[in-house]
């Protein structure tokens, strides 16, 4: 009997301690605001997820080191809670509910369109703001009042990319994009644009970028149609392998890269810049010509190694955390998502360009940040910038 009592006593002590600890974490300290994140931390997209998180962590560390943000009369510190969703929309939805109800997050980041679509179903009802890192246009077409899209819409890329490549190499294109939804939508838009400009599609050969052991058979088939230009797109590293395979098989034409693949990462895999001759893609965010961009690139290198370059994911997320923090200051609240979103436009104009990377000009009506990215292409061994037109 005594043993039972003893066991019960220990158990109840442990439980009450746990309870106290839990209180200390969430409710006890009112001067901490939780920023939620749900994205891939395992599986093929884990690196992508990590890059987005690295950007947020750096921003939050910097803000907290400077004393936090001033909301009303209070100094408030930021805290990041990240949950793994394995890139699966249904998991994002579950995570979002947990982040909102268990952690009290008012702003939830997610770096994929599927997750955004899932959260859009209930974010207004459950009152939280989605920070959507995706260039999928459908995300903003839904006109969700509690959503901010961080990167630009991909609609701006296919036309200038196509015009440039047609001019330099010719009108025949072979497509070797990924098979994920994002690549499918991008490819559909690209095909329409390419044919609209009088081009011809000579081969279409999508492959799963995450499941192949060797891309050369898919590349060989695409090249057998003798294209002038190759269209590729998916995560940077497999994209680089496809370009390498194509060059090894003797392809000398142009390469159009979907915006998902980042030139700075492709470069690191290929190593030899000659393989990149004729490649067109989005200009690396780290080359944005502002003082703030340079500063953050430098501090990233200090933290992660001199040979590492922060990708768009890192820089956009760094900027976005600062933007939301500023908006909370202006709105004077950390838990009213509508009020915070209403101040995003003002906040974007107050971000100091000598401290914060990239440049945001405001928030469009449908909830997208207005930024001005550029395209870049390798011509005669040098990168040349190409203006993108904005309607």
């Amino acid at each position, binding site marked *: 009997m005594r043993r039972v009592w003893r066991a019960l006593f220990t158990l109840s002590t442990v439980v009450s301690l746990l309870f106290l600890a839990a209180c200390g974490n969430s409710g006890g300290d009112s001067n901490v605001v939780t920023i939620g994140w749900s994205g891939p931390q*395992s*599986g093929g997209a884990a690196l992508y997820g990590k890059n987005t998180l690295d950007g947020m962590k750096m921003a939050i560390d910097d803000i907290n080191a400077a004393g936090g943000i001033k909301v009303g009369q209070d100094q408030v510190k930021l805290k990041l809670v990240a949950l793994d969703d394995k890139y699966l929309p249904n998991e994002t939805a579950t995570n979002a509910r947990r982040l909102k109800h268990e952690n009290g997050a008012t702003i939830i980041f997610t770096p994929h369109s599927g997750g955004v679509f899932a959260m859009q179903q209930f974010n207004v009802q459950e009152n939280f703001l989605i920070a959507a890192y995706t260039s999928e246009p459908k995300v903003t077409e839904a006109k969700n009042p509690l959503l901010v899209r961080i990167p630009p819409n991909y609609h701006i890329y296919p036309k200038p990319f196509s015009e440039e490549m047609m001019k330099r190499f010719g009108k025949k294109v072979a497509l070797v994009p990924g098979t994920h939804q994002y690549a499918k939508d991008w490819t559909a838009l690209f095909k329409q644009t390419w044919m609209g400009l009088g081009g011809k599609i000579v081969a279409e*050969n999508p492959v799963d970028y995450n499941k192949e*052991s060797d891309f*050369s058979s898919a590349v060989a088939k695409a090249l057998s149609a003798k294209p002038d230009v190759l269209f590729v797109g998916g995560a940077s590293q497999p994209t680089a392998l496809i370009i390498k395979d194509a060059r090894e098989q003797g392809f000398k034409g142009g390469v159009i890269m979907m915006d998902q693949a980042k030139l700075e990462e492709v470069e690191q895999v290929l190593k030899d810049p000659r393989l990149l001759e004729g490649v067109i893609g989005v200009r690396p965010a780290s080359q944005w010509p502002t003082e703030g961009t340079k500063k953050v690139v430098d501090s990233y290198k200090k933290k992660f190694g001199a040979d590492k370059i922060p990708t768009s994911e890192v820089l956009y997320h760094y900027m976005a955390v600062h933007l939301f923090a500023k908006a909370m200051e202006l709105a004077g609240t950390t838990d009213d998502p509508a009020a915070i979103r209403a101040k995003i436009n003002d906040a974007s104009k107050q971000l100091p360009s000598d401290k914060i990377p990239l440049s945001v000009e405001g928030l469009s009506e449908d909830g997208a940040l207005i930024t001005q990215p550029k395209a870049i292409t390798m011509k005669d061994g040098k990168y040349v910038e190409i203006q993108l037109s904005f309607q």
Partner: protein
Amino acid sequence: MDLFFQQIVNGLVLGSIYSLVALGITLIYGIMHLPNFAHGHLYMLGAYVTFFLITDYGLSYWPAILFAVAILVVIGMLLERLVFRPLHHAPHINSMIASIGVMLFIEAIARKMWGSDYRRLDSPYDGIIDLFGLNITEQRLLVIVSAVVLMIGLHLFLKRTVIGSTIEAMAQNREGAFLVGINANKVSLMTFAIASGLAAAAASLAAPINLVYPSMGAMVNLKAFVIIVLGGMGSIPGAVIGGYILGLAESISGTYINSEYKDLAAFVLLILILTVRPTGLFAKEAR
């Protein structure tokens, strides 16, 4: 026609990698009746070990492969001793679940220790060979040739050496092997060692074609299981032939049907073969 032969070569490269991984799984299955789901992750571990031996310890390609094989042999033996042998007398499902546990464990360790970054393993064989009008990189040729050498080596080992014969005997007839005094524990240990070594060799050969990252083993693992079902669970020729069939089916169907359906084509083939021969191509008996 050039395209056809190019794709045959590509199919052979794929098939070689698949076969080497499938051989490990089929060996372990033959001896212990254990589907080792962690095998693909041993493959991943092999690639990482080779990668670090080259970049951090400055070894050149071939010595790095040899060391990686040796290290994986030790890891395989440890796994057998620490995880699977204690479960020997437990219900069958326990060791299956343990192998899934090992799989998750290895991947988590890799992510923790080395991060999720994609890494590129450079091989000294980066040139391109023009073979009767076909472009093939030296590394791909190396994969094909080395796979054949390894398979012949394994065959000779099993048929010509006493230790090899004990493994064969165990796979053929467990009770019979016990009766003639073969030590089951020793054979299990040996099998795990060989299987892990093969996985490391396959990974070191294939890694320069693709990239090194923590989930690289998962896809190869899945294909390898398809192959041993196709070839007959536990059958060594089945794993070799099955690997080449799947590799060729993937590259040919990807070319002449549609690349989006090439996995589908491979699995339809699997279903067809299993309809005609439900135990797989080379099964010795229905299990």
